[in-house]
C-alpha cells in the first residue's frame, strides 16, 4: 500500500496518541494490579474481626448476617477491582494494536537508504569465531550445570543409603474407596447407590456382554412406560419409575427373574396439574430416581407428585409438592437418611431441601436454599464423623445437617446449568458443571476450595471419588482421572461418545456407560487401563445399578440384567 507524505504524517500522529494512551493505561493497570495483589477479600481486618466474634458465638444470627454482608461487600470490592483491570486490558490491547498497525504501515512505506557495507567478511573466519563462542558458552553452561547439580542436591535424601521401597512407593492408589464407607453388596438404594456416592459394594461383576447377541444377558424386560430414572435395589426387589402423558407409575421387579411383581400408580394425587409441565422434550416426567429402604420405596415425578409405597406396592402416603417449574424439567433424585426422606426441590419459584417423615409423610422441616434452580441430586457425605447432605447448586455448593436441615456450610463456585451431583470421599467434596469448573472443596465451617480445574467438566454425568482418585466423564466423550488430593490430572481418555450416565466404581473398576449404551470398564487406578467395552444394544442415559454380582442397566426401552451365570 503506497502512502503519501500526508498519510504518513497522520499515521504518525495517530501512532503517537495511541502510544501515549497505551502507556497511561499500562501505568494505571500496573497500579491496579499492585493494589489487587495487596487485597485479599477474605483477609479483610474488619471481616476477620466479625468472623472471630461469630466463632465465639456461633448461634448469634445477627452476627452471622453481618459476616455474610461483610463477606459479600469485600468480595464485591475485590471483583470490582478485577473488572477494572479486565476492562483496562481491552483498552491496553486496543491502544497497542492501533500503535503497532500505524508503525507497521509507516515502516512499510519508509524509503530504503542503500547501506554500502565495508569490506566483505571472511566467512570461514566468522565460522571459526562462532565455534570459539559456542565452545566458550558450552563450557560456562556445563560449569553452571555441574555446580548447581551439587548445590541443588543438598536437601535431597541420601540416595546411596536408602533404596526405594517398592512396596510403598509403587502403592497403587484407588484400591480403597473412602475411609469408613463400606457399601452394601446387595442393596443399591438410591441414584448412584448407597449415599448416592457412585460406589457399589460386591465383587465379581461381569465385564463382557452383548445386548444384541444376548450374551451374558440374564433377562431383559420392556418397561411399560418410558423414563430416564435409574434402577434402585433393595433385597431381591428392583424399583424403577416410568410415565406416559400425566400417568406416572412405580414398578417393582424381581431382580433375579425380571418379572414385574407389582405396578403402583403415582397419579391422581390431590393438587397435581392436569397437564404435563413445560420441560425439555427429551426429559419426560420420570427422570428422578426412586429411593428405597427396608420398609418403603419413594418416588417423585416432574409434576411434583411425591409417593411413598411399602414393598408390596401399597401406598403409605402421597402428596403433590406443586409443579417445580424449570426449563429442562425436574430431575432431582430422592435420598433417605434414617427415617427421613430428603427432597431437593428446585423450581424457578423456590429452591429448598425438605425432610419428610418416611412413615407418615409429615414434612419435618424445609430449608430454603440460596441461588437458582439446579438439576443435581443430594449426596450424603461424612466428614469428621459428621453426616452431611451435600447439594451441588448454582452458585452455592452447600452442606446440610440431614436431621435438622440446617445449612452447615456453602461455597460459591458454580455457575450455569448445574446438573451433575457432587462426589465425596472421606475428606473432600467435588463439585463440577460444564462451562464452570471442577472444584475440590474442604467441607465444614470455613469451607474452601482446595484445588480446582476447568479442563474436563461434565454437563450431566456426576463425578465419583475414592480417597485417592477422582473420575469424571464429560458430555464430549472424555474421561479424566484426577489425583483426588492434589488435583493433578493423572490420565485422560477420549471415548468418542457422550456420557450422560454417571460413572460407578465397583470391584476396583470404573463403569462408564456412554449414550450409545456401550459400557466402558476401566481399572480404578492412577494409570489408564481399559478392561472391556460391552454394548447394551440400545442407547441409555441411566446410571447402572450393581447388586450381588449382577449389573442392571435401563436402556431407552428395556431394562437389562447382566450376569455371567
Amino acid at each position: 500500500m503506497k502512502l503519501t507524505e500526508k498519510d504518513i504524517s497522520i499515521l504518525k500522529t495517530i501512532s503517537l496518541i495511541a502510544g501515549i494512551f497505551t502507556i497511561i493505561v499500562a501505568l494505571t493497570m500496573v497500579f491496579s494490579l499492585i493494589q489487587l495483589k495487596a487485597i485479599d477479600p477474605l483477609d479483610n481486618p474488619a471481616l476477620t474481626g466479625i468472623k472471630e466474634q461469630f466463632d465465639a458465638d456461633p448461634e448469634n444470627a445477627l452476627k452471622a448476617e453481618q459476616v455474610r454482608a461483610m463477606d459479600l461487600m469485600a468480595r464485591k470490592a475485590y471483583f470490582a477491582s478485577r473488572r477494572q483491570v479486565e476492562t483496562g486490558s481491552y483498552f491496553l490491547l486496543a491502544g497497542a494494536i492501533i500503535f503497532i498497525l500505524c508503525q507497521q504501515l509507516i515502516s512499510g512505506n519508509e524509503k530504503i537508504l542503500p547501506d554500502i557495507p565495508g569490506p566483505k567478511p571472511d566467512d570461514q573466519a566468522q565460522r571459526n569465531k562462532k565455534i570459539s563462542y559456542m565452545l566458550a558458552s558450552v563450557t560456562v553452561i556445563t560449569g553452571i550445570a555441574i555446580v548447581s547439580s551439587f548445590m541443588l542436591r543438598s536437601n535431597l535424601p541420601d540416595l546411596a543409603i536408602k533404596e526405594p521401597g517398592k512396596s510403598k512407593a509403587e502403592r497403587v492408589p484407588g484400591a480403597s474407596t473412602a475411609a469408613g464407607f463400606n457399601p452394601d453388596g446387595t442393596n443399591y438404594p438410591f441414584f448412584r447407590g448407597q449415599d448416592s456416592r457412585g460406589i457399589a459394594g460386591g465383587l465379581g461383576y461381569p465385564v463382557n456382554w452383548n445386548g444384541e447377541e444376548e450374551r451374558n444377558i440374564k433377562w431383559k424386560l420392556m418397561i411399560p412406560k418410558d423414563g430416564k430414572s435409574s434402577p434402585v435395589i433393595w433385597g431381591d426387589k428392583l424399583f424403577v419409575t416410568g410415565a406416559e402423558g400425566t400417568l406416572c407409575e412405580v414398578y417393582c421387579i424381581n431382580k433375579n427373574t425380571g418379572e414385574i411383581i407389582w405396578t403402583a400408580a403415582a397419579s391422581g394425587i390431590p393438587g397435581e396439574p392436569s397437564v404435563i409441565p413445560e420441560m425439555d422434550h427429551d426429559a419426560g416426567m420420570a427422570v428422578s430416581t426412586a429411593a428405597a429402604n427396608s420398609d418403603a420405596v419413594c418416588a417423585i415425578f416432574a409434576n411434583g407428585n411425591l409417593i411413598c409405597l411399602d414393598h408390596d406396592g401399597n401406598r403409605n402416603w402421597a402428596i403433590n409438592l406443586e409443579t417445580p417449574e424449570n426449563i429442562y424439567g425436574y430431575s432431582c433424585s430422592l435420598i433417605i437418611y434414617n427415617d427421613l426422606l430428603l427432597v431437593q426441590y428446585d423450581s424457578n419459584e423456590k429452591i429448598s431441601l425438605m425432610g419428610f417423615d418416611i412413615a407418615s409423610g409429615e414434612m419435618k422441616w424445609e430449608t430454603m436454599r440460596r441461588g437458582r434452580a439446579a438439576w443435581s441430586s443430594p449426596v450424603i457425605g461424612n466428614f469428621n464423623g459428621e453426616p452431611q447432605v451435600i447439594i451441588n447448586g448454582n452458585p452455592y455448593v452447600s452442606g446440610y445437617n440431614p436431621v435438622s436441615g440446617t445449612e452447615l456450610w456453602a461455597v460459591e463456585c458454580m455457575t450455569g446449568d448445574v446438573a451433575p451431583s457432587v462426589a465425596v470421599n472421606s475428606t473432600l467434596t467435588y463439585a463440577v458443571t460444564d462451562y464452570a469448573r471442577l472444584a475440590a472443596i474442604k467441607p465444614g465451617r470455613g469451607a474452601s476450595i482446595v484445588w480446582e480445574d476447568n479442563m474436563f467438566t461434565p454437563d450431566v454425568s456426576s463425578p465419583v471419588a475414592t480417597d485417592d482418585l477422582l473420575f469424571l466423564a464429560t458430555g464430549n466423550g472424555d474421561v479424566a482421572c484426577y489425583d483426588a488430593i492434589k488435583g493433578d490430572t493423572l490420565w485422560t481418555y477420549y471415548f468418542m461418545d457422550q456420557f450422560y450416565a454417571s460413572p460407578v466404581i465397583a470391584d476396583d473398576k470404573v463403569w462408564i456407560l456412554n449414550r450409545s449404551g456401550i459400557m466402558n470398564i476401566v481399572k480404578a487406578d492412577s494409570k489408564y487401563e481399559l478392561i472391556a467395552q460391552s454394548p447394551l444394544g440400545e442407547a441409555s442415559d441411566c446410571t447402572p445399578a450393581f447388586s450381588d454380582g449382577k449389573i442392571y442397566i435401563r436402556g431407552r426401552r428395556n431394562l437389562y440384567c447382566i450376569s455371567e451365570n
Partner: protein
Amino acid sequence: MPLQRSQIWEYMDVIVLIAALLLTTWLALKKRSRQGLVWMSVFSLAYFGFFREGCICSVGSVQNVALSLFNQSYSIPFTALLFFMIPLIFALISGRVFCAGVCPLGAIQELTGYKPVRLPKAVESVLAAVPFIYLALAILFAALESQFIICRYDPFVGIFRLDAPYTMIIFGALLLISGIFINRPYCRYLCPYGVLLNIFSRFSRRHLTITPAECTNCRLCENVCPYDAILPSDMGLSSEEPEKSRKKLFLYLLLIPVFAVAGALIFRNLGPALAGIRQEVRLAREIRMEIETGTEAVSKDAVAFKEAGKTEDELFAEELMIIERFRKASPWAGVFLGLSLGFSLVALTVRTTRTEYVPHRGKCYSCGRCFKYCPVEVKKPS
C-alpha cells in the same frame, strides 16, 4: 485454560492451520509479499492467539507428543498430534513458513519488532543454546508426567487470555518491549519447537529466496536480516587451508560421542535436582525439614498431605521413586544436548561454496524483511 471445545471446532482449527500455512507459503515463496506476511501474522494472532487463546499450539504440542510416547496411559488428542506434525511437514517442503505468519507467538513479536538492533555475536552464541536446553527439559518433564513447562511459562498466553500470573504478564511485556529492538526474542532464544523447525527446515525442498532472480552480489542485503540469517556468497575463497578444515571436521566428528557421553553424565548428576519440579519431591523436602528442624510445614500441599492421612514413609518412598525415574531419564536429555553441540560444530566446519546471498535454511523465519532490499526485479511480460 480456555474452555473445552467441541471436536468439530478442534478440526476447524486444523483446517485453519493448514489453510494459513498454504497461504503463507504462497506469500513467502511465490508472491514475495512482506505486507501479505504481516497481514497473515495479524490474522494468526487474532485467530490462534486471541480467539483460540493460544491453545492448542504447535509449540506446546511437543509435550503432548513426549508424554504420549513415554506414557501408555496418555492418549494424545488427534488434533494435538496434527498441530505438532503439520508445521514440521511444511518445514520440510517450504522452510519455516509456520514462523513467518502462522505461529501466534511469532506473530505478536513480528508485529511489535521494527527497530532491529544486532546483538554481539558472543551473546548471540550463548543465547542460541537456550532453546536446545529448554526443549530437552520440556520433553524430560513431560515424559516424566511432571509439568508442561512450555505452556506454564508461555510468556504471551497471558496476553492472549488477558489473564495470567503477574510474573508471566511482566515477562511477556518485557519480551515484547525488548522485541522492539531485539526482534523475535522468544523465537530466537527460547522457542523449543523452533529447534525442531530449524532442523527440519534445513532439509526443505524449497525455500524463500532473497532475490527473485539471479543474485548480483550487490551486498545490499548483507546486514539487513535482524536474525543474522543471511549467508553471504563465498566463491570457495576461504582464508583457511583445506587440510586444516578437514582435520577440524574429523576432530569434531570424533567428539560427537564424547559430547553425548559427557552430556549424559552431567544430566545424570542433575537428575535428582531436576526431580524437584515434582510437587511430591518438594513436599517431601518440606516435611523432612519439619521433622529435622521443627519448622512447621505450612504450605497448602503440606496441609493437604497432613489431612489426607498418608504416612511420611509413603511420601518419602514416593520421592525416592520419582528421583530414581529422573536419574534414569535425565541422561537422555544430556545425550540430545551433546549430539546437538557436536553436529552444530560439524556443520560450522563443513566447507561450502555459495555463489549467491542466500537465507540460512535453519535460522530463516521466512519473514520477508529482506525482499525490499534486493534491487533485482523480475519484469512481467506486458
